[in-house]
């Protein structure tokens, strides 16, 4: 049981990848470290539990990576996915530091493996954790505890005492200990690595309105943004568009929280996607799926009642990664519409119109093929095949929000910058809580973990140096 009454050099708030990298790095630099994790031991680690890889620059192929991925190429990818919404010096610094991350993370006991089945497109750029994100977390916690990092579970930070940009203390509430209640924790430096606010539907509604009620949260229910809000309210500079988030279209039957990877659907490119009026609303074949999956969450969020249906036929059934729930199946389009609660005539019309617009071509889902439609809006520009072979299938989808981009502004030391631009005396941030500095928009697979690990390591090191001065 961690001792919350003594004063630590470094207080880390949060328990995921960024928090643990910070804790380990601070401890290795000689600091005494306390980690406050809101979750129970099983659920520790926030969204890291659901991750599986990180994107790091490397100059040569390794045992697990199929080829080099230079800093320049990484930066180009980041520029492309964010549409330039990034702090270039900070992003370049992160990418440079990411090169050392592969070795550093492995030194903390995390093991890598070649890219997973079904993710071959990431085999060169992304390093996959053997056993996935929870295995990674278990390794980090083992290492942290071996080094003497103190960890308190089910302990939520509910207030921060900050004076003129200087952290003084945190008030922690301990769950399930009615008699214990609140305790004030003192430390010389703070690392905030407590995630974003995607699980706080009320907060999301400030920007999204009522539609946010229909969002599913893919990860932890604990990312309610409590620490982020406290920091912003106490003078820390804000970064990132609060309406921006990483959201994908996931199976509408998924649980409200923590459904993770297994509810994702990779079949949009093989069929058509209609809304509750049985109308198509976006080019399903715009680009290869790895480059488009991240836009469909927002697309579905823009549709009435935030629901959509991916419709395809028997020819496509086995062409994509399986997922948790079976597709809804019917022998005719009419029957399928009935099963989905859609207007049968309208779905019939949409499918007939789509089928008539499909031009002849040679189908190849591994490249941008020449199967496209003509004369309908929106068009389907690749992989357009008639939906005509029964049985017919559909997956209902909703926006699945993964993480938010509103965060605390930081510099290259991961040190928080106050609203007036001055660096904080002793406060640092890492992970999702500051991801918006680098990732203003869009998403590239594995980059969340890169932000967490790189800035976590830096934040821990700097916080330790700060605390011991």
């Amino acid at each position, binding site marked *: 049981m961690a001792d919350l009454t003594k004063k630590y050099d470094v207080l880390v708030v949060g328990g995921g990848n960024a928090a643990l990298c910070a804790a380990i790095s601070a401890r290795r630099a000689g600091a005494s470290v306390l980690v406050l994790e809101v979750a129970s031991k099983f659920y520790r680690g926030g969204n890291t539990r659901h991750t599986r890889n990180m994107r790091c620059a490397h100059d040569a192929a390794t045992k697990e990576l199929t080829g080099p991925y230079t800093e320049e190429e990484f930066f180009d990818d980041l520029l492309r996915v964010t549409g330039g919404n990034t702090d270039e010096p900070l992003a370049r610094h992160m990418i440079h530091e990411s090169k050392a991350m592969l070795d550093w993370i492995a030194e903390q006991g995390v093991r890598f*493996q070649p890219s997973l089945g079904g993710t071959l497109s990431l085999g060169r750029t992304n390093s996959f954790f053997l056993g*996935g994100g929870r*295995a990674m977390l*278990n390794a980090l916690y*083992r290492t942290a505890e071996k080094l003497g990092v103190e960890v308190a579970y089910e302990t939520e930070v509910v207030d921060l005492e900050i004076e003129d940009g200087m952290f003084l203390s945190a008030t922690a509430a301990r769950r399930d200990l009615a008699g214990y209640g609140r305790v004030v924790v003192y430390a010389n430096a703070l690392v905030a690595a407590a995630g974003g606010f995607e699980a706080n539907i009320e907060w999301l509604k400030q920007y999204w309105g009522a539609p946010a009620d229909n969002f599913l949260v893919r990860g932890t229910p604990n990312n309610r943004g409590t620490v982020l809000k406290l920091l912003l309210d106490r003078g820390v500079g804000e970064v990132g568009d609060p309406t921006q988030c990483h959201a994908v279209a996931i199976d509408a039957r998924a649980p409200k929280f*923590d459904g993770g*990877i*297994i509810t994702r659907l990779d079949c949009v490119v093989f069929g058509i996607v209609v809304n509750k009026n049985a109308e198509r609303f976006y080019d399903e074949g715009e680009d290869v799926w790895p480059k488009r999956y991240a836009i469909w969450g927002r697309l579905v969020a823009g549709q009435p009642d935030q629901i959509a249906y991916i419709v395809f036929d028997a020819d496509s059934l086995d062409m994509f990664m399986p997922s948790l729930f079976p597709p809804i199946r019917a022998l005719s389009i009419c029957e399928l519409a009935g099963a989905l609660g859609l207007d049968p005539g309208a779905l019939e019309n949409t499918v007939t119109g789509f089928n008539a617009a499909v031009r002849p071509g040679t189908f190849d889902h591994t490249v941008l093929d020449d199967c496209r439609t003509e004369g309908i809006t929106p068009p389907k520009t690749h992989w357009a095949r008639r939906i005509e072979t029964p049985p017919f299938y559909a997956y209902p989808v909703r926006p699945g929000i993964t993480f938010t981009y509103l965060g605390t502004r930081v510099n290259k030391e991961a040190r928080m910058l106050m609203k007036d631009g001055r660096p904080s005396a002793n406060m640092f941030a890492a992970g999702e809580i500051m991801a918006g500095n680098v990732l203003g928009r869009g998403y590239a697979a594995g980059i969340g973990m890169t932000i967490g690990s790189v800035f976590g390591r830096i934040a821990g090191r700097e916080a330790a140096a700060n605390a011991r001065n």
Partner: protein
Amino acid sequence: MHATEALVEADRLMVVCNSCRYCEGLCAVFPAMEMRRAFPDGDLNYFANLCHGCGACYDDCQFSPPHEFDVNVPKTFARVRADSYKAYAWPSVLSGLFDRNGLTIAVVAALSVAAFVIGFVASNDPAAVFAGGGGPGSFYALMPHRMMVLIFGAAFLYAIVALAMGARNFWRDIAEPFATLAAAGSLGRAIRDACTLRYLDGGGDGCMNDEDSRADHRRLFHHFTFYGFLLCFAATCVATLYHYMLAREAPYPWWDLPVVLGTVGGIGLAIGPAGLLAAKWRRDPALADAARFGMDAAFIAMLFLSGLTGLALLVLRDTAAMGILLALHLGVVFALFITMPYGKFVHGIYRFLALVRYARERGAMAAGHGGG
């Protein structure tokens, strides 16, 4: 649909796992699963026997309990595996021996030991039983060599036949062609994987006990047990050759090959099962199929007793205890043989066959022909 509730659960889990695939680097089960999209009973039985129960996937899983998806692959496969032993048992009328297996084996062992003791005493002058002495032929003074060969030869033959029939049932159930067994590549790969216990290592980090420590030495103790058993078996074979080809009768001097093999093997059979049993007790109860604890413990105990009584016989063969110790050792070994097809021993056969199939599938995948 599925034959048992455990198979229904196994199917549910494989759908979850096949949508996730985070564990594919840990062992052979998950790559084998990825070659399929549907999971009939035969394939689930194949996966369950391919699973070494290391537990890594449970600790690595973001969906293990208390998560609502309730994913516990090691425990579910342990149940499926034990059910499959029963289903493949030959003759099928004896499959009930897998129920309350611990008790069954204990009773058989006790009866067997009693039979040998009584037989020794009844067929010899009681004084001869307690006379001791370790010279050549002293064992056979108590039980004629021919009688020993007859009884143990018959027990061994029966075990071989029953095990072979069980193996045949398994092979049919997973619908694997006979030709796979004749493919040297697959066979060689499987022998390597089995002899090194490649998949009992949690993806290279040792097998699990709980998420905080990976200090579990089941692989080491299994090596002690397995190779100890092989050495003891080799000792018996060499002694048989000595007897018939060189006309040299047991007991042999301590430096002679059968004794050296038997002593080293016996030490393995004492250390290995003790370590395995200790590991079993320490194991996270969430991972274990508690209902089958008796089956595992009984087999481990039988191996341990075989080793222990053998060593005791070696050490005390010149004393008055020799006669009773010989009866004890022979009784335990006899019980071990006749219960082999109806206990945990079969795991080795089915797991090896599953590895042979996996080696074939992996080869086919690598060559781009798809699997299963």
